[in-house]
Each structure stands twice: as structure tokens, then as C-alpha cells.
């Protein structure tokens, strides 16, 4: 599982985790993408130190890693929040007000337009292109749970519910 007290990571701790990742990579004949995916999963983002370390161990230039990490939107180069809220902005969600939901979510978490993660690292807000659940548009995903037929008020309720409880307990269907 993800460890959220990343700021407390010592380099030794990070190295230990990276060794395990490198080991799986070498055994399963992975690619740089899978390597970065595992790094992202272990730390919640791709730390620069991790890339430096991996680059040295594998003798692959750092630029190759960053080239991939900046190409795909799934990779983050700065720490992400404990909870991830994804707003679908595909066509079907768009015409049903997906962009309004994105706006509302950001303002509920006091984020400005270009910010993704709250200062206390509790939330990361991101938009997705299409998640294939067009029939229940507009769609919001909180961590792994999909919520359909959302509206701005609903998403605020969702976010506030989390803020209050710390750990989420459920959502009322009405």
C-alpha cells in the first residue's frame, strides 16, 4: 500500500524500496514504463532521487526516464495527495457539465486552476479523458470507487465526507 508520510523518508528507506522494485523489474523482463509505474505506486509519485538511483543502477540516462514520465499523464513528479479524485471530462461528461464539477471540486478544496494537490497532501484532483462509463455521465472517481450521475453539489458532499471522517465510510445513494 501507499505510504503517505513520504516527507519522513530517509534515503536508505527509499533505496530499500527501490531495490525491491529493481529486482522485480530484472526478473520479469519489465520495461521502463512498468518500472516507473511501480515507483509511482510505491511513493505516490516519481521522486527525482529515485530516477537518479535507477539510472545509475541500470546505466540508462535519466533523460529516458523523464522522457517517459512527462509523456504519460499518469506519472507525477511532485507528491500526490492521500486521496485521488478524478473527474471525467470526456465528451459525454462534458455536455452534462463535467467541467463545472471539476471547477466546483477545486474550489471546495481551495485549489486554484493550475493546482492539482492540496497543501496538506490530503487530495489530488485530476481530470480524465474518458473512462468508458458514458452512460452514467458525468462521472467522478474517488480513489477506486466510481460515482455516476454526479452534480457539483454531490461532489462537494463526497469531498467533505472524506475531510470529516478522515477515512471514508460510505456514500448515501438517493
Amino acid at each position: 500500500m501507499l505510504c503517505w508520510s513520504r516527507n519522513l523518508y530517509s534515503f536508505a528507506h527509499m533505496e530499500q524500496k527501490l531495490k525491491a522494485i529493481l529486482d522485480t523489474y530484472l526478473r520479469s523482463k519489465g520495461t521502463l514504463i512498468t518500472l516507473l509505474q511501480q515507483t509511482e505506486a510505491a511513493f505516490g509519485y516519481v521522486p527525482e532521487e529515485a530516477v537518479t538511483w535507477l539510472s545509475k543502477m541500470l546505466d540508462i540516462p535519466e533523460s529516458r526516464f523523464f522522457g517517459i514520465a512527462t509523456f504519460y499523464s499518469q506519472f507525477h513528479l511532485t507528491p500526490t495527495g492521500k486521496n485521488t479524485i478524478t473527474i471525467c471530462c470526456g465528451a459525454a461528461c462534458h455536455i452534462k457539465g463535467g467541467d463545472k464539477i471539476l471547477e466546483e471540486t477545486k474550489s471546495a478544496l481551495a485549489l486554484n486552476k493550475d493546482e492539482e494537490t492540496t497543501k496538506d497532501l490530503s487530495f489530488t484532483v485530476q481530470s480524465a479523458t474518458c473512462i468508458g462509463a458514458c452512460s452514467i455521465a458525468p462521472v467522478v472517481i474517488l480513489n477506486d470507487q466510481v460515482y455516476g450521475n454526479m452534480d457539483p453539489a454531490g461532489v462537494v458532499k463526497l469531498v467533505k465526507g472524506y475531510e470529516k471522517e478522515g477515512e471514508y465510510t460510505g456514500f448515501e445513494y438517493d
Partner: protein
Amino acid sequence: MNTTEQRGVTIKVCMGTSGKASGGEDVLSIFKKLIQLNGIEAQIDRRCGYKKVGCRGFCSKDVLVDVVIDNHKVTYQSIRPVMVERIVKEHILQGTPVSEWLTQDDYESYHSKQCKIVLGPCGEIDPESIEDYISIQGYRAAKRAVTQMNRDEIIKRVIESGLRGRGGSGFFTGRKWEICKARPEDTKYIICNVGEVNRPLAEGNPHAIIEGLLIGGYAINAAKGYIYIRERYHLSVERLRNAINQARAKGFIGPNIFGADFCFDIDFSFGTEAFICGEETALMESIEGKRAMPRVRPPFPVQRGLWGMPTVINNAETFSNIPLIIGKGAKWFSSIGTQESKGTKVFTLSGKVRNVGLVEIPMGMSFRDIVYGIGGGMEGDKALKAVQVGGPSGGLIPASMIDMGLDYENLFKIGSIVGSGGMVVFNEDDCIVSVTKFFTEFLQRESCGKCPPCRIGTKRMLELLTKMTEGKAEYGDLATLERLTGLMKTSSLCGLGRSAPNPFITGLNYFRDEYLSHIKEKKCPAGVCTALISFSITEDICKGCTLCKKVCPAGAISGDVKKPHKIDADICIKCGACYKACKFKAIRIK
């Protein structure tokens, strides 16, 4: 159907993405709890079973629940966890279905117009059970193919069926396989791309995809198959992984399949969020762990593909058709559809229609039948404006062409593509220019940047379209756009750049007036582009209820109780809150 279904009680709860999102998991667990609590097991001889089933399409009325008692099935719609208790008490214990929660006529008409050959088992069988799949003749086609047919026979049958790729350009699947099989290389690969629209298939009937991939692998003599899927589609990944493990345990994949001299294994390749990965060569770059930038063709993937070896790529829907073609024959398959486009196509019908959800239609069905038959008509009886088919790079089909049949030829003719299966319905309140700008914004962001026509073209397109929506466009801009999109169509490296102008070109063809009023009159007829509209209150209609004044976030509305209100255009931020709040339709958008 197996024996447990013929006797006793079976409860089937929809557990597709939509079903789960509407609380399917909770509904199922409450059913389980209440049934145990009520000791129904004892009363009905331990004959009560539960099934999680995949998506059955009618997502707008989720959670859908089937209750089958002694082979008599009824379906409930829009079930919430709190409603379960009454169903258990009145229906399962006392035998009287709760009539007001049953599905209505629209459920019947939604399904009766469709032709569910690929989606048929979704929503009926348990997607996590290989036994369920085998009970509907599953893996029988694969066994026949591997043990009784030679490779050319299989390919010939697929060619005869007329099956075309369900992903992008609609190339004939059998031809693709034929070219790949004829290559001299020893190592070949076969890849199944699971896109967003294929998710319900992967979640509802994953074994059909595995079986199709296995048959394809045998036909081209590949030893290795890949399933390319985005990591974030958790449920699809989980169900496919489970299906692969079950098939491996049964010996359907692995060494010496069905006792024949054929070894085949399937691996996952986890893709990431990138629209460009729908392009075959970009997808292969991504599997190889590089930036997903398309390669120059030729050589085509069937000649030099993954790791430089001949590779076949088809999408999950194409593969799901394969067991049916091998099992039921090419003639049966080609009897469905039109002269050139055979079989069916799965779409996610969405937008401003009454019944949204997953639909499977025979090729050639008219848009009228789709929107007004299956879709149950327009939401709120508004006027249909256009239907967008094929995702962001598909074309807009205007309401005037609603009687056109949906197949590859017709869509190519008007400058659209079948694409992977998105279908969005727009009504009179949607602005074509704004919608086109939205699609272009997306494509500009997703352009990989390798070739200038697409990288610079999409950027310039977006700038010009933005000017139009902001009322800053000049006459020449339309001509510039036309010339630019023509260049992009002919000179881009891959399909993304070549099809990016589709929404604009089709939009301009059929909605030129709307473009002109944005440019010439600086007006947005649909009332969407905020820079071009103004809000005002019709004094005769306004009752002075003060509701608009209360909801206005900018404080732009003034007026006394029971007297007509006024909007100060200088303060108004054009958010539309008053328009939505007004119960008397007194707010006008111009």
C-alpha cells in the same frame, strides 16, 4: 442454463461499472444478509444462489436486479440498498413481486430493438466463473479450431464472415491475419487492445475475449498474446486476470493446448492514460516501454510490429466476435448487417437521450431507430441537433440525416469513422462550434508531437476556434481553418492527426450557418458561448419571486418582491444559475 437456475431462487445483481457505482455491492450484501437472517435457505431447501453479473446495458436504471424463482424471472430497476428488505419480504418470502419497482415498457423496447450477439451473455452469466462460460458453449470454438481445423481454414472462415476491425479504420480482420500468417518469421505476436468502450465486455464476459485471442493466436501461429489495457480500469483488469488464471488451470492456455502441438500464453501490458495509444504502432511503442509515438508505415505492424516481429492487433470487441464466427459459421455471421459491413457494433449511447447505456446494434440500423427506438427519444422532448459517432475524432451527423444507416461506408462518406464506439447525442441547447472546440482541445492535448501537421495544426485549430467562441473571429479565419484542416488530413503521420479535423469538417458542412453567426453576427444561436450571450428578464413573465436574486453568485439581479426583476449586464458573469432556477422561464438568453 444450469440446474441451479431451474429450481429455487437466484438473485442476479448488476455489477458492471455503472451497477457498482449505483451501489450494486451494497445491494448484493444486503440481499445476502437478509436472506440468511430470514432463514430462507431452510424454507426453500438451500436453493438460493446469488450472482454478480456484468453490465446489461440499461445503465440509466441501475441497479438492475433479477429475481428468478423456479425459472420465472422478473427484473427490478433503480434498486437502492434500502429497497432490498421489501423485495425479500414481499417477493421472495411471500411470492408477490413488488410491482411498482419492476422494469417498465422502455426496458422491453430498449432491448428488443438490439441485436445482442456479443453482449448477449453479459448480464446473464457470472463473469468470474469459467464454468458459467463453458455452460454456454464456451471454449468449444477454440477446441474445434485448435484440434480440427487447420490455420488457413480458420482464416478463410473469418474472411468469409466479413468481420472488420471494431476499433478504428475497419480493416478486414481475416485479411490482416492472412498477411501476418504468411510472414516467414518464427516469432509472431497477437495483441488485444481493451479500450474504454470495451470495458463492459471485459467486465461482463471476459472469457469470450480470451477465447478469441486464443483462436487468433493459433491462426497466425503466435506463441504469445498481450492484453493491452489501462491500469486504471481496475474491474476489467481483475476480471480478465481471473479469466486467464481459470483458463490456464483448465489447460486452455499454456503448453499443448487441447492436446495439440500448440503453446500459447497471454500476458498483460499495462497502458497508461494516452489517447494516442489507440494507434497501433504507438501502442506497440508503449508495450516496449517507450514514449507512445507512432511509427512510419510501411512497414505495417503485420510485417514488422512488436519488437520488430509480425504482429496482429485487434480490439476486444473484434476478438469477442471470433468464437461466434468459428462456432456458428461465417454464413450466420454475414447474414447480420449490410452488404459491406457485417455483424453488429457495440456503442455507449450517451448524451441527451432518455435511455442511455450500452447498446449493440446490427450494422446498417438507422440513427432514427437508435435515438428514438432504443434511446426512447430525446430527453425533455428537446429537438435533436446532431449525433457524434466515433469519439473525439469522429464526425457530427446532423438531424437531417437521421434516416441514414450506420455502417462503415456511410460514415466514411460523410467524413466520420465508426471508431471504437462512442455515440453522443446533442440537442438544440448544444453549440456546434463550442463542441468542436472541446474536441480539438482534447486532441491538441493528446497529440504526441512527433509530426508538425498534427502538433502545430491542432494548436492553430484550437486558437482559431477559440477566437470564434469569444467573438473575435474574422471572415478569413474560416478559410484558414478549411485550408489548415485539409493539410492535416493529408499530411499527418498517423490517424490521430488525420482524423482530428473530422468534427470541424463535418460540422462546417452541415452547420455552416452556426459558424457564420459566430463570426459575422457575434452570436451563439444555442446560447452556450458565454462571450456571445447576454441574460435578461422578460418583465411580463417575471412574478418577482426573488429566487433568481437569491441564487445569483455575483449579485447582479435587483428588484423588489412581487415586482419584475432586472439583471445588470455589467455585473453578470453569465453563469446561468438564474436560468436554471427560474420556475416561470422568465430568463432569456440572447
